[in-house]
C-alpha cells in the first residue's frame, strides 16, 4: 500500500522558487538537485540512421556526450545533467540501453575527474509495454521493461525515469471527442493505477542499484492535449480543455512519489509546478529553451520553480554555433546562471515573478500553472489525497474555477469557443458522481463498448 499525499509540503505558494526544493536529491558525480542552485538538463535524439545498429547508436551517444561536456567546460558551467530518452531499440534490447549508459557515464566521469564539473546521467526508459494493437501494460514485455531500468542503472545511469502510457488508449479517444469523463478516467484513474504499479517496481530497482528513482511525466496524455491545442490560432482543441487535462495529470504524476520516487520530475511534465508544492521534490522543466522540440505558451513562466532546466529534445546535428547539443546546452546553462545569480543576490522571487507575469495572461494554460494558482490545484488534490478519482476530479474543478476567476478579473481573455468549452467541461465534472467505485463501473462499461483497443486487464480489472 502506497502512502498518499494529504497535505502540502510547502506552507505557501510564495515559498516556491527555482533551484530550491524541500527535499533535494543527490545524484551522479557531486550533484545535488534542488539544493540552492539550478542545473541545465540537456536532452537529445540520435540522427535517424543511428538506430540501425547497437554500435552506431553507442557511437552517436558518445559524440553527443562528449560535445555537451566539452561545451559546458568551454563556457564554465558548474554543473550539467544529461538525459537520454531511449529510442525503442534501447529499451526493447536492454543491453543496448546499458551499453549507451556505460559509454556516456565513462565520458562524464573523465570530465568530472579532470575538471570537477558536477554531473549526472538520467536514462528515461521507453514504455515498451505494448504490441501493434494493444497496450500490454502487465504482459510479457513487463519484465523486459524492468530489465531495461535495472541494466541501465547497473551500467551508469544515475537517475531513472519513464514517460508511462497507462490510460492513453482511453485518453486518445476521449480528447478528440470532448469526453470529459473519459479524460478523467484515462489520466486520473487508469493512469494513476498504472503509475502506482510501475513506480513501486522502479523504486525497488533504484534502491537495489543505489540510483535515483526520479519520476514520470504525463507526456502521453497532458502533453498530447497541449500539443493538439497548439498556438493561439490553432483550431484543434480548446486550450481550456487542455489545461483541465493538465490539472488532472498532476494527480496522476504524483503517484510516482507516493510509490517511492524522489525526483527530479521529468522535464516535459508541465504538471510539475503543481506536484512540487505537494511533494516537495525537485523538478525539471522546459519552456523557451525547448522550442527546438515544440512550441508552448508559457516559455518563461514555467521556469518559475524548476530545479533542472531542460530543452526537451533536439536531434543531434550541426548548427552554425556547433552541434545542437552544444548550442542548446549553452542556452540552458546561461539561463541557469541567471537564476543562480538571482538566488545568490536575494532577487530570486523578483525574477520568478517577472518570468511568471510575462506569460500568465497569454493563455489559460499558463494562467493555471502560475505558481499561485498551481498551489491551489495542489490543495484541491491533497484535500482528497487518498482517493485517486476524487483528487483528480477536484483538480479539474479547481482548474475551471481558477480560469473563471481569471476571466472575471478582466486580465485573462478567452475566446467564446474557449469559454463554451470551459463551461461544458465544468458542467460535465459537476454532474459526475463522488463515488469512485460507481465512476469506475460506469466508465468500464462505457469504454469497453466504445474503444475496441481498451483491455481492462491492463489495469488488473
Amino acid at each position, binding site marked *: 500500500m502506497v502512502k498518499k499525499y494529504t497535505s502540502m509540503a510547502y506552507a505557501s*505558494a*510564495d515559498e516556491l522558487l527555482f533551484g530550491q526544493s524541500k527535499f533535494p536529491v543527490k545524484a551522479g558525480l557531486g550533484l545535488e538537485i534542488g539544493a540552492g542552485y539550478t542545473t541545465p538538463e540537456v536532452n537529445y*535524439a*540520435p*540522427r*535517424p*540512421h*543511428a*538506430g540501425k545498429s547497437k554500435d552506431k547508436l553507442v557511437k552517436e551517444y558518445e559524440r553527443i556526450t562528449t560535445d555537451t561536456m566539452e561545451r559546458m567546460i568551454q563556457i564554465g558551467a558548474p554543473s550539467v545533467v544529461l538525459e537520454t530518452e531511449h*529510442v*525503442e*531499440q534501447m529499451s526493447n534490447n536492454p543491453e543496448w540501453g546499458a551499453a549507451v549508459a556505460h559509454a556516456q557515464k565513462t565520458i562524464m566521469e573523465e570530465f568530472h575527474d579532470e575538471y570537477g564539473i558536477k554531473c549526472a546521467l538520467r536514462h528515461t526508459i521507453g514504455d515498451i509495454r*505494448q*504490441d*501493434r*494493437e494493444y497496450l500490454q501494460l502487465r504482459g510479457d514485455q513487463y519484465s523486459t521493461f524492468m530489465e531495461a531500468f535495472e541494466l541501465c542503472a547497473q551500467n551508469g545511469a544515475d537517475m531513472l525515469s519513464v514517460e508511462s502510457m497507462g490510460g492513453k488508449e482511453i485518453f*486518445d479517444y476521449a*480528447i*478528440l*471527442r*470532448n469526453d470529459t469523463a473519459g479524460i478523467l478516467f484515462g489520466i486520473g484513474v487508469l493512469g494513476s493505477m498504472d503509475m502506482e504499479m510501475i513506480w513501486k517496481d522502479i523504486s525497488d530497482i533504484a534502491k537495489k542499484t543505489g540510483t535515483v528513482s526520479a519520476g514520470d511525466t504525463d507526456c502521453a496524455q497532458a502533453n*498530447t492535449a497541449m*500539443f*493538439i491545442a497548439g498556438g*493561439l*490560432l490553432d*483550431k*484543434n*482543441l*480548446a486550450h481550456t480543455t487542455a489545461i483541465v487535462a493538465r490539472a488532472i495529470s498532476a494527480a496522476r504524476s504524483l503517484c510516482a512519489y507516493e510509490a517511492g520516487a524522489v525526483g527530479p520530475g521529468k522535464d516535459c511534465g508541465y504538471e510539475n509546478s503543481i506536484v512540487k508544492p505537494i511533494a516537495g521534490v525537485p523538478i525539471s522543466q522546459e519552456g523557451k529553451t525547448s522550442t527546438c522540440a515544440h512550441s508552448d505558451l508559457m516559455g518563461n513562466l514555467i521556469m518559475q520553480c524548476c530545479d533542472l532546466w531542460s530543452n526537451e529534445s533536439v*536531434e543531434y546535428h550541426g548548427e552554425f554555433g556547433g552541434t545542437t547539443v552544444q548550442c542548446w546546452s549553452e542556452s540552458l546553462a546561461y539561463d541557469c546562471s541567471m537564476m543562480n545569480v538571482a538566488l545568490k543576490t536575494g532577487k530570486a*522571487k*523578483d525574477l520568478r*515573478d*517577472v518570468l*511568471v*507575469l*510575462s*506569460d*500568465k*495572461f*497569454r493563455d489559460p494554460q499558463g494562467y493555471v500553472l502560475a*505558481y*499561485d494558482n498551481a498551489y491551489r490545484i495542489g490543495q484541491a488534490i491533497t484535500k482528497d489525497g487518498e482517493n485517486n478519482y476524487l483528487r483528480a476530479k477536484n483538480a479539474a474543478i479547481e482548474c475551471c474555477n481558477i480560469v473563471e476567476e481569471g476571466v472575471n478579473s*478582466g*486580465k485573462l*481573455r*478567452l*475566446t*467564446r*469557443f474557449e469559454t463554451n468549452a470551459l463551461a461544458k467541461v465544468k458542467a460535465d465534472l459537476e454532474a459526475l458522481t463522488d463515488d469512485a467505485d460507481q465512476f469506475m463501473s460506469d466508465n468500464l462499461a462505457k469504454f469497453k463498448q466504445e474503444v475496441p483497443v481498451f483491455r481492462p486487464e491492463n489495469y488488473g480489472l
Partner: protein
Amino acid sequence: MLDLKLEDIDGILVRYNVGLEKEMTPDEAAEELYPKDELIYPVAKAIYEGEEDDVVDALKAAIDAGKKPIDLIDDALMVGMGVVTQLYDDGIIFLPNVMMSADAMLAGIEFCKTQTTEVPEPKGKVVCHVAEGDVHDIGKNIVVALLRANGYDVVDLGRDVPVDEVITAVTNEKPIMLTGTALMTTTMYAFKEVNDKLLEKGIKVPFACGGGAVNQDFVSQYELGVYGEEAADAPKIADAIIAGTVDIPALREEFHKH
C-alpha cells in the same frame, strides 16, 4: 507576488485569437450552409451535431419518403460532412467536432449499406500507417478520420507497421496516396525505406508524411515524399491528386510551406 495592471498587459502579449474571433456562432454559420431539402437537412444537421442516432433516424425518414440509400451517401451524408469540414477550414469549429461528425457520418454510411445491395463509390483509396517501431497513433487516427470525412476509402494499417507490410498493402490496394506518421526521429527513417522499396517495384505513389519529429527537410530527401504539416493537409493533398496533380514536385510546390 508582483502583478501587472490591466492596462499593461496588452504591451506584453496579444491574444490574437480573441481579437479575430468570428462574429457568427458555429451553429449560425452551419445553419447558413445546410442544404434546404427538407429530407436532407435533418441528416446534415445531425452530422454537424455528431449525433449518430439522429443521423440514422433522419436517413430512415428519407428512405421512407423514397430516397435511395446509395444516393443518400453522397447527397446527404457527404453534404453534411462538407458543412463540417468547411466550418473547420474556416476556423469556426474545432477538431473534436469534426471527429464526432466523422463518427456520425460513418455510422450513417454503414446504415445506408445495410439498406441496399449497391456499393458506394468512394473518391479514391488511401493507405495510412504509423512508421515501424512507432506506436504513437493519435496523429494517424486524426488523418484517417479527416480522410474518411472527405469521402476517401481508407485502408488503415495501424501503428508500428513493418516496411514490407506497407509495400504489400500499396501493391495490392493501388491507392492514390500513402500516408505515414511518426513521432520519433529514429522511427521516421522507415519512411525512406518504404520510399526505396516502392521505387524498386516501380510504384510512384505520392507518400504524404508528417508527425512530431518529421519535418519538411527530412521528407524532401526521398523521391516520393510530400510533407504535411497538419493532419488537415492529408485530405487536401488527396484532393489535389484527384484533381490531377500527381507529380511529386508539383505537390511539394503546393504543400511545402517552408
